[in-house]
């Protein structure tokens, strides 16, 4: 697209899809914004009066808000940590020329295709169940008391489940990055006397920085809105121990039929997501530039 003509043409061609996307985004956002200032409860049909920032006040001063805010950060941070460390490890293993490598790669990718509700159910009933779960059996075999994961470690359990789902994604992105590493650099490092650790920290890891950045950004977007795993396993409990912002909005609006309060929560969530996004872009965004 070098000439003025082709640039103009490109703009015209892009216009319909861009405006459609914009409308797609703007209309619901504006409606949510509008509802968030109304006293709008489905159980109490009425005028839906304008009540200013009252919905926001209720949402933000709710003690559950602070707890679920930190739960959200812990959930995102924990999953990122596990998937990145595990992903780098898996990617390095999968890059080795092992027999049947292609099948192993397919299998590693499998969890990504399992629906969140299904995987959460599988974890809940087959692994973490304190009576029938595999972990409980293992604990009994060792002679210790089985852990009731969802009662004792609710947030950690959810972090583990969500990590299991996102590990393949991280591993796959990092694997393609590793495969693009110039082998001659590693050979040069061999000749320069670098051991496996030096090679990993000085050559492989810096090479992966772009891919790691991409994984962090993409995963963060999705992890801020984890919902199904919580609904299926702990329902946000005990208390609010495993409630994140997304789930809090659900309990506030849908369970109490409070459209106004839920909308206010939604707007708060959008603001939080943007703060996180700006923070991340500042922190690591420069890795994406050339």
């Amino acid at each position: 697209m070098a000439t003025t003509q082709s640039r103009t043409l490109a703009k015209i061609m892009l216009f319909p899809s861009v405006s459609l996307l914009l409308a797609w985004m703007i209309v619901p956002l504006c409606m949510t914004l509008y509802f968030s200032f109304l006293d709008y409860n489905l159980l109490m049909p009425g005028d839906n009066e304008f009540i200013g920032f009252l919905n926001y006040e209720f949402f933000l001063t709710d003690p559950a808000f602070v707890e679920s805010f930190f739960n959200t950060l812990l959930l995102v941070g924990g999953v990122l940590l596990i998937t990145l460390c595990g992903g780098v490890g898996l990617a390095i293993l999968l890059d080795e020329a092992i027999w049947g490598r292609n099948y192993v790669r397919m299998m590693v990718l499998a969890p990504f295709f399992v629906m969140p509700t299904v995987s959460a159910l599988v974890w809940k009933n087959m692994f973490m169940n304190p009576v029938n779960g595999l972990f409980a059996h293992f604990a009994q075999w060792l002679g210790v008391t089985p852990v009731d994961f969802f009662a004792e470690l609710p947030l950690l359990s959810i972090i583990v489940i969500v990590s299991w789902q996102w590990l393949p994604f991280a591993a796959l992105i990092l694997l393609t990055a590793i495969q693009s590493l110039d082998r001659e650099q590693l050979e040069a490092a061999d000749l320069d006397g670098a051991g496996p650790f030096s090679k990993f920290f000085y050559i492989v890891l810096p090479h992966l920085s772009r891919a790691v950045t991409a994984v962090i950004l993409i995963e963060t977007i999705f992890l801020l809105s984890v919902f199904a795993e919580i609904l299926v396993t702990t329902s946000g409990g005990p208390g609010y121990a495993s409630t994140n912002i997304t789930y809090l909005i659900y309990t506030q609006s849908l369970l109490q039929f409070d459209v106004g309060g839920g909308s206010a929560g939604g707007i708060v969530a959008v603001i939080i997501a943007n703060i996180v996004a700006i923070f991340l872009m500042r922190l690591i965004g420069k890795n994406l530039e050339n």
Partner: protein
Amino acid sequence: MGSITLKQVTKSFDDVNVIKPLDLDIRDGEFIVFVGPSGCGKSTLLRMIAGLEDTTSGTIEIDGKEATSVPPAKRGLAMVFQSYALYPHMSVRNNIAFPLKQAKVAPAVIKEKIEKAATMLNLTDYLDRKPGQLSGGQRQRVAIGRAIVRQPSAFLFDEPLLNLDASLRVNMRLEISQLHKSLDTTMIYVTHDQVEAMTMADRIAVFNGGIIEQVGTPLELYRKPVNRFVAGFIGSPKMNFIDVAPKPGDATHSLGVRPEHFKITTEQGLWQGQVGVVEHLGSETFLHVHVDHIGTLTVKADGDCQAVYGDQINLTAEQAKIMHFDKQGMTIPALSWGGESAA
């Protein structure tokens, strides 16, 4: 110290035999060039010497010590790769320092060595840049700098000038030769370009299909190639080959005449042909002459040669400088250039 001895080394990838049993003595301090067409195994042999490829059989000795299965870092060799293989996220300074840091050299010593190498290679102003911000020639020099600071017993170069443009290539060729003179360290240099080989080498090893056809000084290879392959590979433009009808008592199957050994004569010569394309280079002129029953001969003439397309010319060559090859393509020394003195 930097003598390397290869004894009956071979290399196979799965079933494919890339290096046939091969012997070679590389002397301390010499500049030896491996030259040959692409895919003949030059890089593979270089990488075997470096320790980056396993040796299938045979032994490699470095400074008289068995080194066949010594890991690359312990061989005391440094390699400059065709892609330069610089570490892209490290500054030039850190690239050059990397091998020293790995060897746990004291920071003060590292600083001093970097400074010395940078001065030698004209890199002082670029030490804090990343490789991505350098030109091809500068990257090349950083790669050489990284090799120099380790003070290796031998340098290995794998087609280091391939990615440079023509004029830079000539400069770097000179710089590398200069470097060899000042360091006085063994250098093994791989290229497929016979001009690089002829201009830089103390000795050349001509490779073909996994074997070494001939090892010798540039002039030895030019004057006394052992067979048609070497004769055709060394020298630019290529030697002309002329098939001849076998005569009883004479094993000659074909003749070889270098373009520069033809003479254009007015009287009847050995061959007569019609001038095709004429290439004027100023200092010399290349004529492509079509000769009936033989084909096209390349002839090197003076810069002021007046022949034009379509001219009929007579060609002759100094008898003594014509090469004779037998049916297998081997040189018949007694009949060829230098044969008299050898006989």
